[in-house]
């Protein structure tokens, strides 16, 4: 039996986060809105209505096209009609780009765990409108048109992925990129990023593209991984038992973690595509395109490399700090304000700031505590004006109150106590009130010194300079 490798291509549908829908003025995002509340004559396909293109959709799509370094953003692309009957498709056709899509070619590089990079080619990017949603009740279908006309960008990869893990990695990188560019919230659970996977297998070493199956309706990255894994296993079983792979369309049942056959490819409808006569071609001005290219932000992988080089960060740190764009910007601003070792800033951010971000369910860019505050706070810890544990608490206090760290330290008297005279008289008191522990120490068990330091910390609510306290106790106890 030969060994098999799998060949995977992904078709993703990206919901662009424009204010309004692609062809009318209705609100695009209907998450948690009541059914049929964001609708109008245009998106419900009343007789006589016409679509008009929302230019923000084109701008956002072009941003992604440039970010994946497409071979070309087509100077002229067209919309077509994809004709089919379905109750949640109110016009009886979906307006979608078809033979002349917005952009062609391009790639996304995936760093693999072994240090190599998998280049995933992008075949095309095209714009289309979403259909509505059908909810099946017993013997009834309820239709919600809110989603009709929500802008989607379809991006199709070449058959370049080799494992279910790589497919998952691709989606993670794509999601990161979409959020980085600010063009989609890319939440798979909310349908903002949808993925169909084309899967086939072949003996290792072969270059053939064999008959593939298409897995639809998978709504999380974990499920994409599981569904592809299950399908690869099924195909291998099928071939090993002498069977043949047929071009099925499969549906992933999340509850049972199994695949169902939806239909054979042969029975697929003829959509009778033709150019949409109600819309003009999408014209891309070359000067505008160059402006867009210039305005493209540094991308996550570039920034990660730069952080490693510029700030001498370990790769692990750099990866985490560039996971999300505002986090990476937060880091740079903090480093600039801190004027010290960037690794110290990195430690604070990875341990404490990320905890704060997760607890608050927010992003770095939306925190109340500013990079300048964080820098000030770290500087106080470094200068031993406050203790590290005070610093951690201070983070929350700044976020909660909006005051500067310095103001809070002053107002609450959180400054570290390094006044030797004051600490010495406190130490004398502690020694006088605890003769048993003193006897233990003088009896030779000097490790009890820590206990004395602890008592001091209690007295000073943690603000005492620990090294100084140790020195004082050691001197006093040696004498007694």
């Amino acid at each position, binding site marked *: 039996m030969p060994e098999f490798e799998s060949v995977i291509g992904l078709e993703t549908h990206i919901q662009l986060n424009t204010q309004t829908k692609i062809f009318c003025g209705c609100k695009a995002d209907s998450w948690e809105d009541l059914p049929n509340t964001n609708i109008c004559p245009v998106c419900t396909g009343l007789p*006589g209505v016409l679509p*008009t*293109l929302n230019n923000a959709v084109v701008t956002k799509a072009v941003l992604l096209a440039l970010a994946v370094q497409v071979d070309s953003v087509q100077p002229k692309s067209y919309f077509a009609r994809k004709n089919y009957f379905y109750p949640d498709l109110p016009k009886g056709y979906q307006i979608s780009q078809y033979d002349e899509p917005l952009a062609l070619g391009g790639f996304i590089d995936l760093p693999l765990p072994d240090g190599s990079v998998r280049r995933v080619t992008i075949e095309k990017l095209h714009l289309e409108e979403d259909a509505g949603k059908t909810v099946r009740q017993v013997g009834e279908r309820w239709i919600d048109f809110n989603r009709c006309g929500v802008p989607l960008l379809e991006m199709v990869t070449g058959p370049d992925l080799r494992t279910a893990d790589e497919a998952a990695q691709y989606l993670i990188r794509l999601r990161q990129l979409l959020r980085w560019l600010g063009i989609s919230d890319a939440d798979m659970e909310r349908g903002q990023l949808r993925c169909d996977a084309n899967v086939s297998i072949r003996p290792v070493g072969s270059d053939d593209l064999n008959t593939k199956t298409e897995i639809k309706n998978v709504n999380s990255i974990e499920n994409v991984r599981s569904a592809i894994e299950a399908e690869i296993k099924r195909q291998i079983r099928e071939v090993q038992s002498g069977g043949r792979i047929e071009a099925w369309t499969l549906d992933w049942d999340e509850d049972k973690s199994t695949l169902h056959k939806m239909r054979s490819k042969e029975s697929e409808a003829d959509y009778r595509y033709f150019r949409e006569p109600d819309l003009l071609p999408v014209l891309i001005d070359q000067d505008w395109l160059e402006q867009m290219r210039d305005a493209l932000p540094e991308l996550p992988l570039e920034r990660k490399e730069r952080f490693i080089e510029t700030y001498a960060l370990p790769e692990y740190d750099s990866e985490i700090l560039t996971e999300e764009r505002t986090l990476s910007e937060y880091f740079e601003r903090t480093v600039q304000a801190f004027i010290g070792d960037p690794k110290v800033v990195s430690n604070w951010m990875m341990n404490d700031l990320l905890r704060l971000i997760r607890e608050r369910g927010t992003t770095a860019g939306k925190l109340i505590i500013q990079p300048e505050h964080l820098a000030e706070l770290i500087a106080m810890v470094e200068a031993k004006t406050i203790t590290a544990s005070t610093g951690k608490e201070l983070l929350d206090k700044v976020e909660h109150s909006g005051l500067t760290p310095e103001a809070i330290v002053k107002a609450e008297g959180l400054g570290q106590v390094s006044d030797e005279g004051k600490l010495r008289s406190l130490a004398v008191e502690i020694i006088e009130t605890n003769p048993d522990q003193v006897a233990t120490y003088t009896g030779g068990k000097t490790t009890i010194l820590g206990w004395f330091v602890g008592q001091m910390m209690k007295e000073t609510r943690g603000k005492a300079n620990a090294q100084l306290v140790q020195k004082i106790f050691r001197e006093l106890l040696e004498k007694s």
Partner: protein
Amino acid sequence: MNEALCDLSALEIARRVKSGENSAVQVLESTLDRIRNVEGNSPSTASYTFDPADLEKIHAYITVTKDRARVQAEQVDRAIEEGQDPGPLAGVPLAVKDIFCVRDTPSTAGSRILENFISPYSATPVERLEAAGAVTVGKVNLDEFTFGSSNESSAFLPPVGNPWNAAHVPGGSSGGSAAAVAAGEAVISIGTDTAGSIRQPAAFCGVVGMKPTYGRVSRYGLIAFASSLDCPGPIARNTTDVALALQVMAGSDPHDATAAEVPVPDYVSLLEGGVEGLRIGLSPDYFKLKFPDPETGEIREQSIDPDAQRAVQHAAEIFARAGAEIVEDVPMPNTHYGIPVYFVISRVEAASNLHRYDGVKYGYRYDGEVEDLRQLYRITRARGFGPQVKLRILMGMYVSAEQYEKGYYDKALRVRTLIRRDFLEAFDPQGRYKLDCLLTATTPTSAFEIGSVYGDSVLMQYADLLTVSANHAGNPGLSVPAGLDEKGLPIGIQFLGPDFSEGTLLRIGRTYEMRTEHEPWRAVKPKVLQGLG
């Protein structure tokens, strides 16, 4: 015969209403009176039994929006009392082809499938006409979804009669519009022209009809037939009123991406400019019809009616005398492809445009037991659509199927480009002909009898042979009445001009009107009006 208020021109009505000489309500009452006198049985979708009396009457209105109209007329009158200007069409009675959505009115497209559809919004051009003071009297009949040239395919019967002889068709698909205007049941009407659907009925009913440049008037709210060909336009009894209405309707629209951003000239002020120095062309390809024999497919040739030929020659002489230069023998070699190309393009687009009528959201839905969704679609569409619609859907589905698409639709689009090239060359200011317009007959024949052609959809389509090219090419065309034939039926002549030359075409039409003012046929009234006091 005393002219009733409803027989006055739009220009005169607006003048009188604004000056307080007559109220908008009075004009409306006069129009409603006329409707009572000439309409006869109202068209309905109930099963139709032929009544010979129907051949005497017009039956133009599917819906008379009396109450809504009265509110509008009163608003116009109130505005005038308060010293405001209600607009250039103050109090002018308007008939809207029932292919336009008008807020709170049944908007049926002449089809059973939309019989109970009340539109929640108004079409842009209708909204603009109403905003200019026009009073919508009602929604007028048409071929079902505009698919026809005679009005006989409407689900609402009896069919519209031609005011000049109600046993003859008014033409189509804007037959209700042309008939209503000719009979004084409205002063202006808004129609649509996809292959000649404004110009052909205007010619048949002896009124003026303009198909503007594609994109000149917004299509928003026009229930689509063939989206790349459909043009809304005005119908009225003279060129001045057409100019007035077009002025109001035209212009860009944020709801229609294909509506042109070209500024709208003041058509009315351009009207009296004459034709001195204009180059007006005649083409042999518009005197002889070429068409494939329905049996053998061989190309046959046939001359247009001699009366129509004479009307065109007569007009050419008039223009020559008025200082225009007549250019003969202008080749328009691709004209005869107009109808076959139209068959393909219009049906592909129509089949797609009709997808939305599935009984799910609005309009007719079969309410009996069904096994599944597919059966609901099938029975709803089988019962909701008439035979002409089904024919078009079938053909549209067939030629756009994956295996035929390249052979039909793509090829038709290429031929369409050739047809446009004919016009571009004729109108090219640096070219050989440098035409300002092409002068042709509007139709090969005058209005035929009801029942004589209906059923032969190929023959019926050839009524549009002289008009359809402008729909392919997108350029404007104006049809004006040019006399009566030996049967006493109107003949129309047509001016075809370059893109956005509506102003010039109206000027040419107005010149023709003035120069033929005293010809005897101008005094003849449509038969349905003879004997009315």
